[in-house]
């Protein structure tokens, strides 16, 4: 957007972050045990946790990305945002309550109630680290680019500053600070989006339908602006996108971990319904803002909006503020501040999740070290992870296409973790070997298909390009239609090959506990 250093944006960002640091300070004084560090002591209310979960998903990727897609391609961007509304219905229906009833810190706790702890924890640690590192890389690259484009901070410095800030939340405040960061950010984001929608209605037209008509007339696609297929070429790309988006959260470790921060199943489902409502409401508004950007900026805005359309929303913001002047500066600064806070919050959650699997699943549960050491090990792991990620981020630089990193992370989560969790919860024949084979086959299939797919293959014809042709051996950007079945198949084949004796009692125990919460630690109290 601006070429130089954007003072207003930096000041507003610092103000927003200052409030989150106050929250971190208070959180650090209340974070003494590992339960407090990993899961805020299980004392979050459903409403707070739901807002934090929504915060995880209302990321800068959705704020800038959905708006940009809707701006560039119309209906394709809208359906993308709309399918994302179903994410937490899946989480709610399939796992939220059961996971809360069975687990403590990581989802491997739930698996270990009926399968052999060692192998299951090692394999889920592998998939968790894989997912978190790639997701983190995507966040860091996007963060550096964003800071450079919007605040005028050099890419490398942007990445380092983001890493240091994010580590501060993790090291000192643990899950409590990370959750509060998400909540503050989510509220700020919603306020900004609501403000922008109101301004759009005032400045362009009070009737949203007229705005849509204007957008259509401004588009190079004409009436086809409201048809699908402008960016997703062919029916299978749309179907795989819809399935991938809908299943994207069911296996993401940092999202699953959030369900351990509430005391019981009742609060777990309250979290889910809050997340569904907030994400649903905001995706609709964000898609509408993308359309409004088309109506306001017209075709002339395409140059400002950038190739992926990521800067369409900032451009609309400047336009709403009246072009140059303090009003536009301030509005833009709000969008920048919220985007940066989002990025920090999501990264902090990822680092926390990755270090929890190292400290809890590996250190404490597989190598049988005392649980009191978990927090120290977790902090060391967090620092090491961030150093590695920053190194890799600086090495690959800001020109890297980050879509494939994020797609890799969510597709792997859905292909490696989701089948194993579902089969362990529901299938009596499931064995430890099935979990190991299922997770690995899901992970490797997703990896292989993305590496041979259009996001990576030379002469990139990525997801969002206008070109129909791709040289990639595998034609779909989202591998999920094949890799999720591969994960399920791995579970089944592994279980049938296993010589492990049937343990019906353990499965019955898991089912009873999953549905009733029997044996759940009832000593936790809600923090208000």
């Amino acid at each position, binding site marked *: 957007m601006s070429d130089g250093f954007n003072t207003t944006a930096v000041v507003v960002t610092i103000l927003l972050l200052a409030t989150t640091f106050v929250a971190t300070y208070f959180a650090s004084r209340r974070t003494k045990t590992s339960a407090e560090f990993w899961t805020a002591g299980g004392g979050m209310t459903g409403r707070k946790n739901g807002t934090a979960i929504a915060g995880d998903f209302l990321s800068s990727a959705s704020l800038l990305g959905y708006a940009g897609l809707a701006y560039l391609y119309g*209906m394709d961007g809208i359906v993308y945002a709309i399918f994302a509304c179903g994410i937490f*219905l899946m989480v709610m229906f399939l796992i939220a309550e059961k996971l809360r009833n069975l687990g403590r810190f990581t989802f491997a706790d739930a698996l270990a109630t009926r399968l052999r702890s060692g192998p299951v924890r090692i394999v889920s640690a592998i998939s968790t680290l894989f997912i978190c590192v790639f997701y983190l890389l995507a966040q860091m690259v996007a963060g550096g680019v964003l800071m450079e484009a919007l605040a005028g901070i050099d890419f490398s410095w942007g990445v380092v500053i983001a890493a240091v800030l994010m580590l501060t939340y993790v090291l000192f405040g643990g899950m409590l600070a990370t959750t509060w960061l998400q909540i503050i950010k989510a509220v700020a984001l919603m306020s900004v989006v609501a403000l922008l929608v109101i301004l759009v209605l005032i400045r362009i037209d009070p009737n949203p339908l007229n705005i849509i008509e204007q957008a259509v007339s401004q588009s190079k696609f004409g009436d086809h602006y409201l048809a699908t297929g402008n960016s997703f070429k062919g029916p299978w790309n749309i179907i795989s996108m819809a399935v991938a988006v809908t299943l994207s959260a069911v296996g993401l470790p940092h999202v699953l971990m959030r369900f351990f921060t509430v005391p019981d199943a009742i609060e777990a489902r309250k979290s889910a319904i809050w997340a569904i409502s907030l994400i649903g409401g905001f995706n609709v508004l964000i898609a509408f803002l993308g359309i409004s950007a088309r109506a306001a900026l017209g075709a002339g805005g395409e140059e400002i909006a950038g190739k992926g359309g990521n800067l369409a929303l900032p451009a609309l913001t400047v336009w709403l503020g009246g072009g140059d002047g303090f009003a536009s500066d301030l509005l833009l600064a709000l969008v920048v501040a919220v985007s940066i806070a989002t990025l920090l919050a999501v990264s902090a959650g990822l680092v926390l999740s990755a270090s929890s699997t190292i400290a809890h699943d590996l250190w404490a549960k597989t190598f049988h070290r005392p649980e009191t050491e978990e927090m120290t090990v977790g902090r060391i792991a967090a620092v090491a992870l961030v150093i590695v990620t920053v190194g890799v981020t600086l090495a690959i630089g800001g020109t890297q296409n980050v879509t494939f990193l994020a797609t890799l992370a969510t597709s792997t989560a859905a292909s490696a973790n989701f089948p194993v969790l579902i089969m362990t919860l529901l299938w009596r024949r499931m064995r430890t070997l099935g979990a190991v084979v299922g997770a690995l086959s899901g992970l490797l299939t997703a990896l292989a298909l993305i590496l041979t797919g259009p996001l990576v293959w030379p002469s990139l014809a990525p997801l969002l390009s206008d070109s129909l042709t791709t040289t990639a051996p595998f034609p779909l950007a989202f591998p999920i239609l094949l890799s999720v079945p591969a994960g399920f198949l791995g579970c089944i084949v592994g279980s049938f090959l296993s010589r492990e004796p049937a343990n019906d009692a353990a499965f019955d125990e898991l089912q009873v506990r999953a549905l009733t919460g029997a044996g759940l630690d009832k000593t936790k109290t809600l923090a208000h």
Partner: protein
Amino acid sequence: MPPTETAVDWSRLWSDPSMLRLRRDRRSFFTVAWSVFAVAFCALVGFAAFAPEIIATRPVPGLSVGLILSLAYVATVMSLGAWYVRRARHWDILAAAVLSVPAIREREVAGNV
């Protein structure tokens, strides 16, 4: 995980009449809820994937079939979520009945000491 070795016959509990009531009620909810979701999902994906031109037609100026389907999908998802939360209150009561079966209550007490 089990804090004490107080034996609980989980298999018997799983087929206890109180548990069967909970299981039946959940199954009847999820049968309907998944069907409704499947219809909504397939309708939106189906039109988006195979009928882009129908998606683009506008029965009312500014309001296309695609936008109507999208809003209907969001409304369906939210209603299913709200319905789940309401129905789950009933499951809490049924689950409490399961937990009051003598075998498990002893263990609960032992576990929380």
